[in-house]
């Protein structure tokens, strides 16, 4: 056997073997069309090798022409197969270019069979025997080149271009190895065969047609790649089996875990609307375990109020790959309503379209109920908070405002947002802040605190407030809770009351002084009398010329003294008549008793009433409004005198007593020897317009009580065990 025969046979057998192998593969995997095209190309290459060998052995030109003609058939099959193998295997190359190349090759084939002897030669004039490869003598055609052969060349060129394009596209896509080996070998060997054709057909160089060799390389290279793919897929398949087993394991584990977590798993096929669920989910939704659920029937079971929202959410989830979370209510077949939380995500299918939506659902009814209960509690406490007619606040030990009511906002003018970041120093300043800080400490030490301070409102205004506070253990931490009342209106009312009280006191005082006018005039007359008499005595001494300077000095000293005395009386009178003297001063009640007795002295003389005093020495002073306290005492003294009008003149006396009352107050009492007060009228006497006198206004004692009360003291009436009434008042001693 010659080398050529051997080589051709080997080429053919290799190609046939590869073809057979991949045919087998294709049979197993019918959708692997690349394999079929490879099989075709390999078969074609094998046939071509046979034809070429026969041609080399041809003995006549005619015989050669026929062989060459039939040789175009495998050659065309080979070319077309390569186009589509490359296209399918590399998943690259312009399809239209493939079709154009295919079409051109088909045209060339048709022309080949229409022309005689073939596409390559117009006429084969003879055969030339040439020495070739290994000293073999082979037949080489001699003749005229067929111009139509250009069509064949064109198809070859198109094939080459297609392969180059596909290889580049594959390379660029990243499949570098595949593109290099398949595309590269195709390009290389196609170039060689084209060159060969050109040389043989146009160049007149006498070598035999031996394309099959060049194709062999290409087929082997492609076969290698294809086989590698097969091997790789076999490996992958093995791995897949393992991982499938693992997947089944993990699936089972997942199911177990889901069961344990009372979670139901599900998957939704967006095309069919079929819903795949775990039995647990069916159970949760109240269906039998083997129930065949789809999206529509599932949505029917959803609470009408949630249905549309859920449907929209699911539709949206199917379009995007983002994770979806939604909570909804389902009405179970038994009528029970339960809450579910759903989480899911759509997976991208291999074709790039939306794939199955898969996810997990959990029954959250208990949580929802707890939440609702919590919200209910919160709403209740909020309502209670807001029902408080003042500010309500809950502070942490760090001084942060934790909770408050609506009034807190409306009173201070701060918004919810602002109050959430409010600290003590934002609400108080200066002395108030110090007061609050001190009270704060006491409250946390366990005391109940009540303070009056100014609260700084938004915009700088200050609101007088009464604040309370008490320590509260809340969530295991010490807190301070309390309420605050706006004292603005109260203060106004208080001032108004004070104004009216002063007004009334003044009125009462003026009335009383009116009654006393005679007595007062007398008191004033005494010093005036002394002054006038002294002065006139002096005038007379001077007129007589017997001036005793010593006597004159004494007279002048007396005049000055008496003038002062008159001045004092007038000053006291003016004070008493003055409208409002809110000033508080330190007062010694003993001194005050003497002042008042001076004022009423002549009245007492007129009524033949005697005053007796039992004054405690070094009595602590009190703080108060001198005029108003004098008024009280004066009132009590005059009342005592009035009470004794019916007594014989020898039994008209009253006693004024001062003493300590405990360690923090002093008591002054006026005891008369009148008829006393009926025991059911001890309180009534302090009522306004209650009077036992015919011409009395009935305001005196009412005014007295309001004065003493305003001084932080107490005024009350009682009867003396011996005889008459006792009116007493206590006043706190001045600190």
């Amino acid at each position, binding site marked *: 056997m010659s080398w050529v025969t051997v080589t051709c046979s080997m080429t053919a057998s290799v190609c046939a073997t590869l073809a057979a192998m991949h045919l087998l593969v294709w049979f197993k995997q019918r959708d692997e069309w690349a394999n079929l095209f490879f099989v075709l190309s390999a078969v074609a290459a094998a046939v071509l090798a046979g034809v070429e060998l026969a041609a080399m052995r041809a003995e006549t030109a005619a015989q050669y022409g026929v062989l060459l003609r039939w040789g175009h058939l495998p050659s065309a099959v080979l070319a077309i197969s390569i186009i589509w193998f490359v296209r399918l295997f590399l998943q690259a190359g312009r399809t239209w270019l493939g079709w154009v190349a295919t079409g051109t090759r088909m045209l060339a084939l048709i022309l080949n069979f229409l022309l005689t002897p073939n596409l390559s030669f117009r006429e084969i004039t003879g055969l030339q025997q040439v020495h070739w490869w290994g000293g073999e003598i082979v037949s080489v055609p001699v003749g005229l080149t067929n111009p139509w052969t250009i069509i064949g060349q064109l198809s070859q060129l198109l094939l080459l271009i297609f392969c180059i394009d596909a290889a580049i596209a594959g390379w660029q896509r990243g499949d570098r190895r595949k593109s290099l080996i398949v595309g590269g070998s195709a390009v290389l060997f196609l170039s060689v065969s084209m060159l060969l054709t050109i040389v043989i057909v146009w160049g007149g160089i006498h070598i035999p047609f031996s394309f099959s060799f060049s194709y062999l390389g290409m087929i082997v290279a492609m076969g290698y790649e294809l086989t590698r793919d097969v091997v790789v897929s076999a490996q992958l398949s093995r791995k897949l089996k393992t991982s499938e087993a693992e997947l089944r394991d993990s699936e089972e584990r997942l199911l177990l875990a889901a069961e344990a977590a009372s979670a139901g798993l599900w998957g939704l096929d967006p095309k069919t609307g079929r819903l795949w669920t775990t039995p647990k989910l069916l159970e949760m939704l109240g269906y039998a375990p083997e129930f065949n659920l789809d999206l529509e029937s599932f949505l029917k079971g959803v609470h009408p109020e949630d249905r549309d929202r859920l449907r929209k959410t699911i539709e949206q989830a199917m379009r995007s790959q983002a994770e979806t979370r939604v909570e909804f209510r389902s009405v179970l077949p038994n009528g029970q309503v339960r809450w579910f939380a759903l989480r899911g995500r759509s997976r991208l299918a291999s074709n790039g379209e939306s794939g199955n939506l898969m996810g997990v659902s959990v029954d959250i009814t208990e949580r929802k109920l707890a939440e609702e209960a919590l919200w209910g509690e919160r709403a209740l406490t909020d309502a209670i908070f807001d029902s408080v007619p003042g500010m309500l606040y809950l502070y942490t030990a760090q001084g942060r405002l934790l909770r408050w009511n609506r009034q807190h906002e409306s009173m201070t003018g701060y918004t919810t947002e602002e109050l959430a970041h409010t600290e003590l120093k934002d609400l108080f300043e200066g002395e108030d802040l110090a007061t609050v800080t001190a009270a704060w400490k006491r409250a946390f030490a366990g005391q109940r605190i009540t303070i009056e301070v100014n609260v700084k409102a938004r915009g700088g205004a200050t609101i007088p407030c009464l604040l309370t506070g008490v320590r509260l253990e809340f969530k295991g931490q010490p807190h301070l809770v309390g309420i605050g009342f706006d004292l603005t209106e109260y203060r106004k009312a208080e001032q108004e009351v004070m104004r009216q009280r002063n007004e009334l006191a003044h009125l009462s005082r003026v009335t009383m002084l009116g009654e006393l006018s005679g007595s007062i*005039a*007398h008191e004033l*007359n005494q010093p*005036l009398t002394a002054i006038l*008499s002294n002065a006139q005595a002096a005038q*007379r001494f001077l007129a007589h010329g017997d001036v005793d300077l010593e006597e004159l000095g004494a007279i002048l000293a007396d005049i000055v003294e008496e003038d002062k005395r008159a001045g004092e009386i007038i000053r006291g009178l003016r004070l008493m008549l003055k409208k409002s003297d809110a000033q508080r001063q330190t007062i010694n009640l003993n001194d005050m008793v003497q002042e008042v007795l001076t004022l009423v002295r002549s009245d007492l*003389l007129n009524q033949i009433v005697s005053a007796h005093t039992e004054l405690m020495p070094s009595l602590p002073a009190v703080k108060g409004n001198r005029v108003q306290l004098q008024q009280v005492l004066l009132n009590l003294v005059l009342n005592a005198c009035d009470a004794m009008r019916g007594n014989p003149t020898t039994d008209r006396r009253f006693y004024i007593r001062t003493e300590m009352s405990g360690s923090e107050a002093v008591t002054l009492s006026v005891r008369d020897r009148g008829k006393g007060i009926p025991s059911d009228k001890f309180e009534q006497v302090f009522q306004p317009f209650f009077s036992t006198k015919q011409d009395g206004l009935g305001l005196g004692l009412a005014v007295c009580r309001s004065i003493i009360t305003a001084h932080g003291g107490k005024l009350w009436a009682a009867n003396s065990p011996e005889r008459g009434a006792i009116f007493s008042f206590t006043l706190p001693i001045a600190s």
Partner: protein
Amino acid sequence: MSKPIHNGAPTIFVVDDDPAVLKSLGRLLRSAGLNVETCNSPQDFLDRHDPAASGCLVLDVAMPGLNGMEVQRALAAIGDERPIVFLTGHGDIPTSVEAMKRGAVDFLTKPVNAEDLLKAIRSAIATDSVRRRERDEVEEIKQRLATLTPREREVLAYVVSGRLNKQIAGELGTAEKTIKVHRARVMEKLKVQSVAELVRLAERLGIRPA
């Protein structure tokens, strides 16, 4: 039993419970050359005063213990007719009317002007002096009257009733001449010159005509 009544200047008692007023009044009266005694209470005055001493009383109305009106009544009760000048802080009419009815010399309102006060005091002193002189005269006449015999007193009663000697003799059953002697002795003992004088004296003594 008669006491010396003109043994010195009249004394002015001043009673006021206000020491300053008392002192100034005393000073004023002394400046007028009067003899003054000041008392700081009615009781003090009652304890100290000598009813025989001439003069007057300047009395404050409103005082603790006894007031001025009561002092006036107390003096009247013991027959002390000392003239009183009342001083008052506020002169209310009922009080002043009562005081005047009871013989007060004046009722002055404080502060009192020196002239007014001195005028009242002088008037009071004069009143006191007249009163004392009259009382002295009556005393003397009474002493003279005491020297008459009962027959002479009978004759006196008839004489002041305007009877003639003859009529008296007829009434008493005696001689006209005897009556004439009695009449002369009565006029001599009572130191009168005429019947008219005798009648006036008898009136003062309160002898009623027979």
